[in-house]
């Protein structure tokens, strides 16, 4: 469905380096990383909103740059909340938007408006932040897209709305024909619905696997500082120390289960936090 190979983008102060991954039909790929790690740059490079320095993008088996016009109809994407034409009525905006899509589904569009309780007669600026996110999703979901790319779709939503949205994501992929790539730094969203995790740090992919593989291949180790050897400390991806002891993230393969420490499986948030403590 989506194949990214060797995607790079050079900026004077930031480099996106050699990003590669696949997303198959029927799955949700969660794209995580701290703010400024390169999530939006990756997504914008995929969609040619940023011209990549190098790399190859294939969507539905076709080269994206060579078939941009055709493929953009098959991709539904949003970048957070709708922040354009805020003083324009949603109806006016929708009337322009829908003209661009040959497979615009008016009935589905109305269904999403009702589901999200959005009135078309309102101006964009009259919507709350969360409703603006939902408006963007309504547009993206109503033109027969097969691949959905959402950049921070859950930011600004209250917990109930976020939960509803994650249910919707699972509903979308349930027919096995559609896929979702969504970036977030709210890792609990991914705990609930992601099948695969792509983890980016400082413009480089540090993990690309199923969610379960990622979690099961790491351990959180806790113990007293007195028992921590220099050799073991070097094996940690990230470590936190205080006067009561230490806790750190380690790859399971590097951990000797005979050691006198408490261990547990990490959650996605802990993985993200400890990876970003690597150089601390």
């Amino acid at each position: 469905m989506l194949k990214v190979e060797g995607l790079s983008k050079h900026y004077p102060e930031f480099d996106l380096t050699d990003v590669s991954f696949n997303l198959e039909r029927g799955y949700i790929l969660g794209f995580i990383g701290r703010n400024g790690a390169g999530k939006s740059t990756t997504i914008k490079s995929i969609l040619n909103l940023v011209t990549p320095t190098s790399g190859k993008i294939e969507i539905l088996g076709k080269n994206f740059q060579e078939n941009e016009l055709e493929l953009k109809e098959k991709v539904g994407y949003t970048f957070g909340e709708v922040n354009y034409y805020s003083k324009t009525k949603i109806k006016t905006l929708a009337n322009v938007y829908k003209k661009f899509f040959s497979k615009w589904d008016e009935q589905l569009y109305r269904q999403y408006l009702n589901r999200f309780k959005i009135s078309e007669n309102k101006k964009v600026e009259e919507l709350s932040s969360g409703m603006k996110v939902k408006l963007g999703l309504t547009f993206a979901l109503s033109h027969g897209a097969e691949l959905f790319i959402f950049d921070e779709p859950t930011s600004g939503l209250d917990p109930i709305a976020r939960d509803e949205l994650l249910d919707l994501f699972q509903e979308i992929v349930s027919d096995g024909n559609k896929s979702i790539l969504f970036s977030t730094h709210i890792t609990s969203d991914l705990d609930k619905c992601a099948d695969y995790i792509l983890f980016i740090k400082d413009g480089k992919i540090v993990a690309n696997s199923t969610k379960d593989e990622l979690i099961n291949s790491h351990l959180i180790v806790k113990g007293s500082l007195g028992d921590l050897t220099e050799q073991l400390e070097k094996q940690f991806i990230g470590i936190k120390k205080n006067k009561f002891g230490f806790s750190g993230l380690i790859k399971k393969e590097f951990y000797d289960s005979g050691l006198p420490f408490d261990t547990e499986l990490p959650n996605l948030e802990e993985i993200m936090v400890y990876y970003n403590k690597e150089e601390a």
Partner: protein
Amino acid sequence: MKNVIYKELKLFLSPIVYFMLILSALLVIPAYPSIVGVSYSLLSINICFSISRANNDNQFTAMLPVPRNYIVLGKHFSVAFIEILQVLIAIPFALVSVFVTNVAGNLVGIDSNMTFFGITLICYGVFNLIFLPWYFKTGYKAGIPMLIGVLGYFLVYVAFELLLNFTNLKIYLDGISAEFVGYRVIVLLSGIVFFIVSLFVSEKISSKNFDGVVL
């Protein structure tokens, strides 16, 4: 591309553009510089680009299934649309000026004849060549490109006025005498050609400039 044009007409072009067109009527004022009326198109363009920045217009277009250069083409369409409409609306007022209100000739510059429209189109072309490629270096900063573009527009116009007044070209190009109509037609056609070429050249440079812009 027709959808991008529809989007430009519905969202980018502010209703104030259509009000500004009426100001082409300033041509009928006796002893008044002809260039003033048709220059309101530049104000319209400035207003539209300012509003579009507030509306994140380019970001909206980028959300649509169109290649990047359609954003550039759309804006070239809009600018040309405003300029051409301003000139077309000016034509009946120009006729009133030369046959009714300025029969003895315009005392403060060229008459609103074919030469005037040719020069106006050349000035628009110069403005387009400065403003649009410069604007597309960022896709949102319109202020300085607009200022320099307008300066270029008026400098070219003043240069033409000086050329007419300090050479004997005035005999051939000013007024509405039937004897020298061929010369005036040549200037008009030159203006039309320059205007069209300026749009093509500007589009090529603008697209290249816009390639590196982050949307």
